[in-house]
């Protein structure tokens, strides 16, 4: 059984302008000790997915459907008391900006021990020792002195180390990292990524790495989910996604990244602007920007289809190719189409 099982998760924000379907029916599984990358651009729903798992949605956000199972136990609708035992203990999260995640008026030691006291049965002295041990684990020099300092005395990279120490203090099964290195410089980013990779091996936890940077994904992740407009376009092992992409959006993203080979040449960007989540098309959300969009892409959403055992994508072009190659019979075609009253328009 998978450690975390997300099925048809739907999360919406209810704004004055209408319902924003930030996460629109996504499913994935995460096994023990695996690193899963969720990539997408702003507004693709990757962070909302993480907040939904932790149930820390802000304001008008609500999970409107689907299920999230941790070790077989349903979390959606389980109530705040259950979630309190999950957060920090079983699933921890670190955020993009370590400055706003730390309280500037308390010392680092106070904040670290507070988290440990809250989640374990240690007394104050044991919690302090555990905090020291955690700081050593994340390579903070001179932890005794550092424990008595305030967040402003730490650099960005050091603060992110403290956040990681805090998140791992109670030995969670899953660490969710929401753009943990986006605010950091490249050399510091490299240090933090290396640290995360080392801790993942040593402690054997699973990591959900949320990022817009395909370079970070390539470095750290076993499996990858590509999101666009609240849906999963494509998911599979890192090698499959990078070397054998089967969704037009993934291909477009890869083409958009400048590399040594593109120097002096034109990039081939994805045209158009990101989708307005308030006015979602009934077909494939990427169709309005897709170079190879067909008629069916505009009218019907493509269901998830397996490319091979390590790889699945939701793109009509794959169905078309399958029919042309004879691997999919045209009769099976209807099975891939989403049936649904409002989709017919």
């Amino acid at each position, binding site marked *: 059984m998978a450690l975390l099982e997300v099925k048809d998760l739907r999360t919406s924000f209810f704004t004055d302008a209408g319902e924003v379907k930030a996460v629109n029916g996504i499913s994935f599984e995460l096994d023990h000790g695996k690193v899963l990358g969720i990539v997408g*651009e*702003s507004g693709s729903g990757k962070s909302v997915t993480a907040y939904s798992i932790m149930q820390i949605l802000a304001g008008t956000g609500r999970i409107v459907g689907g299920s999230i199972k941790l070790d077989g136990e349903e979390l959606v609708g389980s109530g705040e008391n259950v979630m309190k035992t999950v957060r920090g203990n079983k699933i921890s999260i670190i955020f993009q900006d370590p400055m706003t995640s730390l309280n500037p008026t308390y010392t680092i030691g106070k904040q670290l021990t507070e988290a440990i006291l809250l989640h374990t049965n240690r007394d104050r002295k044991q919690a302090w020792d555990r905090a020291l041990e955690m700081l050593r684990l994340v390579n903070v020099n001179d932890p005794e002195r550092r424990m008595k300092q305030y967040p402003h005395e730490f*650099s960005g*990279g*050091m603060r992110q180390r403290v956040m990681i120490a805090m998140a791992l203090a109670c030995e969670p099964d899953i660490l969710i990292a929401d753009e943990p290195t986006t605010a950091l*410089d*490249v*050399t*510091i*980013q*490299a*240090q933090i*990524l*290396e640290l995360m990779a080392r801790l993942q091996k040593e402690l054997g936890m699973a990591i959900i790495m949320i990022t*817009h*940077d*395909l*370079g*970070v*994904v*390539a*470095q750290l992740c076993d499996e990858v989910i590509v999101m666009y407009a609240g849906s999963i376009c494509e998911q599979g092992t*890192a*090698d499959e996604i*990078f*070397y054998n992409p089967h969704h037009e959006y993934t291909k*477009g*993203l*890869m*083409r*958009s*990244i*400048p*590399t*040594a080979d*593109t*120097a002096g040449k*034109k*990039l*081939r*960007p*994805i*045209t158009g*602007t*990101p989708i307005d989540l308030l006015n979602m098309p009934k077909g494939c959300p990427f169709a309005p920007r897709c170079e190879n969009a067909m008629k069916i892409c505009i009218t019907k959403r493509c269901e998830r289809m397996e490319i091979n055992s390590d790889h699945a994508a939701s793109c009509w072009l794959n169905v078309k190719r399958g029919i042309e190659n004879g691997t999919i019979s045209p009769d099976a075609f209807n099975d891939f189409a989403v049936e649904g009253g409002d989709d017919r328009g």
Partner: protein
Amino acid sequence: MILQWKAVMTVAENRPLIEVKDLKEYFNINTGMFRSRPLKAVDGVSFTINKGETLGLVGESGCGKTTVGRTILHLYKPTGGEIRYEGRQIKTKEDIRNFRKKATMVFQDPYSSLNPRMTVSDIIGEPLDVHNLCSSKEERHDRILELMDYVGLNSEHAARYAHEFSGGQRQRIGIARALAVNPDFIVCDEPVSALDVSIQAQVINMFDELQEKLGLTYLFIAHDLLVVRHISDRIAVMYLGRMVELADAAAIYDHPLHPYSKSLLSAVPVPDPKIARANKRIALTGDIPSPLNAPSGCPFRTRCPYAAEKCAESMPPFEEISKGHFVACHRLAEINR
């Protein structure tokens, strides 16, 4: 108005448009009620930018790359050194005023660099008004529409406000504003860092196209090394207010010589799992020292794996070690054996 296309120049000419010599920019930081100390944001930087060329300027936060860009445009008064435009030093107020008709800037944050109370046509038209470049209302209007066309905005957008646009479109407005005075030189300060990958590629292509069409010269400041590699002819690497290496883009990427350039480039996450797994990173320990307490001698020596005694004693000179390849390192010969 007839389009004022400049001579189409695809190949950079070997004539310096901008010459910067020993540029220094110190900020006074109050450290007590009556005491202050200089923060040496830029400490003796020299380089030239040829006509039609793109010089990429990279480095981590706090290295002074933005300050270099702003000081060239005299948004900060230089503490020392000189800046020449087409061979003439910029000194008097009159010089600065004329220079700013030829040199403009695109800012990083498309959200805070546009006035929310002005319409797009007023934002783009403001430089025209400031420099009295249009004699009639019609001319101004036509010029604004022409500029919007350059950057791929529709003419219907002219009467709208900045908040009605997405990040990528806002950056286009900022670029149109920079182009309004018909400049030769644009300082691009992290113009694509705030944008999503797919939009970033659109804007990068636009910078390329505008350069070809209008013969522009860019100083392209960014921390994203893949972007800089793509767009630049030559690249300069800065560390703690100093330039440590300057060379052709390909030379820096394929054979960086300074230990800082080496580790900076090896730290870039490559979007290719096989390369990323095999990649031997030259890990740097520690953080960048504060520019208020810069180390003696070579600024990089506190994090440099090759640091020796002489590195603490004196600042290594910024020397040309092969044609067009400048490096500042005492132990260059030993490291690159």
